[in-house]
């Protein structure tokens, strides 16, 4: 499964970004391969519609699940059309910590 975690930086020790549409970076984590890649958000400076533009990017990255602090209504409605699971969490944790937690929980959800 491909999971996106919104991130403030481009390394595993970066803190999770609580914003979705205007998050600094996206960490794409592939649970099958265990690999991560970081993608810069091109929509940070968007005047409006950052949420929908970022949602389009998620579809292009083939994300199946996204972990962020908050999703705006327009982003939410677009992501739901692609059956992408959205998880809102209120934590200030490094990306690696989030990944460790995912690794612990995913086998039980299969």
């Amino acid at each position, binding site marked *: 499964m491909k999971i996106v975690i919104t991130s403030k930086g481009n390394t595993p020790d970066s803190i999770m970004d609580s914003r979705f549409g205007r998050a600094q970076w996206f960490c794409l984590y592939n649970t099958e391969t265990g690999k991560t890649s970081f993608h810069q958000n091109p929509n940070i400076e*968007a*005047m*409006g*519609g950052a949420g*929908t533009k970022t949602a389009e990017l998620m*579809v292009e990255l083939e994300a199946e699940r996204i972990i962020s602090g908050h999703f705006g209504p*327009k982003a939410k409605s677009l992501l739901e*059309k692609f059956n992408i699971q959205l998880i809102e969490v209120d934590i200030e944790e490094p990306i690696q910590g989030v990944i460790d937690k995912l690794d612990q929980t995913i086998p039980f959800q299969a």
Partner: protein
Amino acid sequence: MSYKIAIASGKGGTGKTTVSVNLFKYLSEKYKKNVFLTDCDVEEPNCLIFFNDAVLLNESTATKLVPSIEKEKCTYCGKCAEWCEFNAISIIKKARFTEVNATLCHSCGACSVACNFDAITEHSDPIGKISRYESGFGCELMVGRLNIGSTMQTMMIEKTKENIPENHKVLLFDSPPGTSCPVVETISDADYVVLVTEPTPFGFHDLKLMIDLVTEMQLPFGIVINKAGLGNNEVYKFIDDNNFELLGEIPFSKEYASLYSTGNILKNIPLEIDLLFRQITERLIKKIEKDEGNHHTER
């Protein structure tokens, strides 16, 4: 042709609507049904709450043009989305997905020009309602109401103003707060702008922004100080130093504020306030009369 007076302030809550509805009432004593008030604060219009006996005469829907994408013709090239300054179009080639977000669309038409495949057609999408009322004392007023969630304030104001009936001697425009596009749209064709301020640092700061704006737009203006007695004397000194016109002062009064809170500022008006509004109205009537036959062209 009508003499147009816009009431603006910069800072919110200084008393634009209080001044607007009072000028409406007092000017109607001279001009009778020839005074028409338009509430241009389309995000939160509130003039109507002071007219308890108002009767709805007419209501229409304001619309803007929004693109639709024909799936059969679309090649998912994404040029329309690229051209869209407002990110209102989503094209995901991989998923053969197109979507137009009407609330983000500013109706500029760039997407139609961008499309090389004739895949874009435009349809009307509602942005708000325009309602005309009889005020309860003979004069009519109009209210523009922007739909919740829409970002088209300026277009809504433009459409509302387009609906103002002709042949009124005096048109009053109650402006939204701020100094950005919606305010510019409201005051753009005014013959005179009444700037309402309060003698607080915030009120003063925004008054100066507003004066910069009307000066830039070359619109004549005068100042009404509301809630006089609050704050400090800076605004008085500023008006004096620059020789700006002070149309009048309305004192800060708890009695008046409580009348406002019950929606009754046009009934049982305290004598002191009544005299002050008469004075402001007289000064405006002089301008209206002097202006007769001397109208500048529409901007």
